Every structure is written in structure tokens, then in C-alpha cells.
């Protein structure tokens, strides 16, 4: 245990995902010796992330404005909507450069153990979006794990009755039990282009 503020910092850092007690200590002492200007920039970035970031009205992705860059981009096909769990999954799919449509971020997956049902996800918004707009294809790109698969099954049932709507799921081949973001670009790209109607 260190005294006062240093230990406080170590404790706070240790609460971040993927940061163990050893790394927390290393980061804390790095910051202690860092240039004041660097610290100020970090401080600002931390502040802005809570104050400056909003969620896109349309797709739910993190955004700087009310509507995100992808939803504003006229070159992106509004007829094709890719449904993902988290904003980080949008980045993963963008990296493949395979997809020219738009996104819908659910904000998680069905997870009764954590008390998460459809009402805690942006499901209603998805259904509204599909009824209002000229969406012709919904690609279900939830994670290839228990909760992601259940969410996909649930959405297939909800979307079944929209006339003229094609619902597809990423092709298998993604490492099962994993997170979309951990799949490499090639694998994810292949899963996307090989998607199948469900």
C-alpha cells in the first residue's frame, strides 16, 4: 500500500477492464513522472468522454453530433442495416471495408443473468427504424456466443413479419464463444460476405 493520492490513483486504475494491480501500479508511477502538459491532455480527454460524447439518434453509436458520421454519409446505403451489440463492433466491421450500409447498435445482448431483456436494448428503436424507412436487409452481427446467438434468434422472430425484408446472419466460421471485436479482419470480412438468410 502506498500513501494517499498515489494509492487512490492505483485503485481507480485497477478498476478499469484489463488492468491488473501490477499494471495499475506501473501506469500510476508513469503518470507521476509524466510531463504536466501530457497529464492535462489526458485529463481533458477523460472529461470530454463523459460530457462531449453523445449517442447517435438514429443508430445509437457513439457520436460527436446528434447524428453520427455514418448515418449522415449519403454514400452509405440506407437500405442495409447491420445490427451489432456495441460501438466497438461497428469499428470491427468498418475495418473489414466489406460493408457499405448503416448500423444499429443495440447496447448489449439479451442476458437474463444481468437482468437485460429487450427493453434494456435498443430493440424498439430498431423496429421503428425498419417500419419508417426503406430498409430491405437487416444483417444480424451480434457476438458468436450464447447471449449474442439468443439475441439474434429473438430479432429474427421480431423481424419475420416485415414484408419485403431480408434478414441475414453472419456466416459461421467466427471463433465460437468469442467477441466480434476479437475476430481478425479477414475472418470477419468473410463472415460478412458469406452471410446467409435466416
Amino acid at each position, binding site marked *: 500500500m502506498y500513501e494517499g493520492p498515489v494509492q487512490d490513483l492505483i485503485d481507480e486504475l485497477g478498476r478499469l477492464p484489463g488492468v491488473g494491480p501490477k499494471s495499475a501500479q506501473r501506469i500510476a508511477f508513469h503518470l507521476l513522472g509524466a510531463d504536466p502538459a501530457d497529464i492535462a491532455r489526458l485529463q481533458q480527454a477523460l472529461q470530454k468522454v463523459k460530457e462531449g460524447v453523445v449517442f447517435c439518434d438514429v443508430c445509437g453509436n457513439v457520436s460527436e453530433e446528434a447524428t453520427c458520421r455514418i448515418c449522415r454519409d449519403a454514400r452509405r446505403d440506407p437500405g442495409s442495416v447491420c445490427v451489432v451489440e456495441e460501438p466497438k463492433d461497428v469499428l470491427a466491421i468498418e475495418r473489414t471495408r466489406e460493408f457499405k450500409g448503416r448500423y444499429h447498435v443495440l447496447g448489449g445482448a*439479451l*442476458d437474463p443473468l444481468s*437482468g437485460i431483456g429487450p427493453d434494456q436494448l435498443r430493440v424498439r428503436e430498431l423496429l421503428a427504424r425498419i417500419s419508417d424507412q426503406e430498409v430491405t436487409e437487416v444483417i444480424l452481427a451480434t457476438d458468436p456466443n*450464447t447471449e449474442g446467438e*439468443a439475441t439474434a434468434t429473438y430479432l429474427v*422472430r421480431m423481424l419475420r413479419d416485415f414484408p419485403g425484408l431480408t434478414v441475414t446472419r453472419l456466416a459461421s466460421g467466427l471463433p*465460437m*464463444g468469442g467477441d466480434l471485436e476479437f475476430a481478425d479482419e479477414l475472418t470477419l470480412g468473410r463472415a460478412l460476405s458469406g452471410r446467409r438468410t435466416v
Partner: protein
Amino acid sequence: MRVSHLQVSDFRSWEHADLELEPGANVLVGRNGQGKTNLVEAVGYAATLGSHRVATDLPLIRHGCPRAIVRVAVVHDGRELTIELEITSGKANRARVNRAPMPRTRDVLGILRTVLFAPEDLALVRGDPGERRRFLDELLVLRAPRYAGVRADYDRVLRQRNALLKSSGHARRAGSRGDIGTLDVWDGHLARHGAELLGARLDLVADLGDHVTAGYAGVAPESRPAHIGYRSSIADSFPAEYGTPGTRADREVLHDALLAAMVAGRDAELERGVSLVGPHRDELELTLADLPAKGYASHGESWSFALALRLGSYELLRADGNEPVLVLDDVFAELDRRRRRRLAEVAAAAEQVLVTAAVEEDVPDELVGARFMVAEGKVARHHE
């Protein structure tokens, strides 16, 4: 297959141990509490990623140490693969094969196969049904490693569905709907994974049954015949011959039967807040003549039955073309002369067998081979 080299660090009582093992018999001898079982437990861990003695990993790490390391070199079909496992308490374990990190620890399953018989196995006969389900599932994974994934998926879906049943049950009693609209989804997934697990278990019992009966007749020829049978929570809704020798269970049939049982039992499930049908409720029945072994078999009969389950597993894997390493932990002392002799015959014919004993005289003469003396934190090869 065989283990050519075993190394452990901070595993159980061992700060460090390093053994070159031989084909055929390897006998570890030493007084009580010297760490013999700890060594064979490490071999079993490399094969199953679990211990035959404890359900969690924490006791495997030497007291006061951050992690344990188990390194096992396996020779199979003339090729050598080295499995290295790092067991860390409260964090994900790490696995390497020939120094290359594996994406998931369970990717090492299937490299080493062991069948381990130990005093704890009496619980296979006398313990709860969960012990026997675990026996079946571990054997399934030894036969086909992908079942580790099937089992994990099933358990995860089951936990999610139980959570939903519980919250929906509460909601229903409070007059609201909650998330019951998603229950169908979990029903479907439970039925899909459940049919796969149930079908695999039924097929396993179909293949294993005769080996167990023969194994029991071998160790206890004077006793009544032993049989195993699978009792499913939905046994009425699929053909009765499933799980008997020479049959294969149709996964489609099982899927539909599970789904129908969930729909029919929905009220009771919501009431109790748990899933009432599926492979997690099933039982592997052990019978001697027509009586269940549990509650009726004598101490000696129970022992023989436990031994027959392990010998049957060993014979089944051999018949599959995957001869496992046989591990006999402290079992000879418990057996009478004839059973000892019979077990020694099987063991002496094995490609490799690891034996532990506190008293050297308990080890039958048939098991000539490498001898190791285990005492005071050291293992010494004994040359006569």
C-alpha cells in the same frame, strides 16, 4: 499414447518436480502425504483441465504461490507434443502447445487422454447423480473434445434460462409480463444444445455398456451381472432403445421432445424458477442384477462397480483407437487378492500405466517397470 516427461512447479505440495516416465508401468511409492497423488493429479489435469479431487483450481496452486505450472510431454503415433498449463487462481488459465499459446485453454483437450481410477471414484456409485453425469461428460470429451464446447454452451444457456424463469416467475406473481416473451428463444437454444448433449450421452452409454458389464465380470466374477442405463427426464418421449448397445439417438427427435416437454411444463418451471427437463436432470443408472447399486451394493461391490466404470472407459477408448494413459491412484490397497491380480493384468497390458502406492508390497508383481521413490519433496528413480 504415453507421457514421456512430467514437470510441475508450485503445483500442490511440489515446488518443483521433474520425472522422465517410461512406457509400460511407472510406480510411485512413498509414505502417506508425500505428494504421489499430486503428481498423477497433474497428469490428469493436463488431460481433462480438471482435478479428480477438487472442483476448483485454487487448491492445486502451492499454498502462498501466485500460479502453478504443469508441463507434460505426450508421445502419440511417434510424435511428441508438449502441453504447458499455467493455473492462476481467480484468472483465466493459460495453455501452450509446443510453446505456442493457445487461444483458449480448452484447445489442449484431446492431446492427452487419461483414464484415472482413484479412491474418490467410490462417489461414482454412492454419490449424487451429478457425479455420474460428470463421469459421462468427461468421457464424452475424451472421445471427442468438441463436447467440451457443447457442454459449456449448454451450461451457459441453462443458467440464462433459469435466471429468466426466476425473474419471469416473480413478474407473473406480481401481475406483469416481464421478459417472458423471450422465453421461447431460450427454450429453443436449450433444446438445441440439450439434444446434442443428450444424444451424445445416449450414444456413449450405448457404446460403453458392454465394456462395463465385462469389466465388472472380470474383477468380480462371482458377483451378479452389472449394467448401466441412461435415465432421461424425457424418457417417455423418445424410443426406449436409445442408449442401448448398437443404437444411435436421433438428435432431431430429442430436440423436438425437449422442446415439447418445456412447453408442457412451463407453469411448473415458472413456479419453481428452474429448468425441469434436460440432460442436467438425467441419471446414469447402475444396477447389479435388478437392484440399483446405489443404496444396495456392498462396499466391495461398489468398489468393483467404480473400477468397472473406469476399466470400461479405458476399453472403450482403446476400441476407438485412442489408447489412453491409465492412472491408478492408491487403489491396490483397497482390493482383495483376486481383484488386485485382475486389475494388474489389464494394467500390465497398457501402453502406459501410472500407479501410486504407499506400500510397495501392495503393488502386484505383474507391474514391473520404472519405480520412483517419493519423499520429502523429491522424486528419485529407483534402480535395483
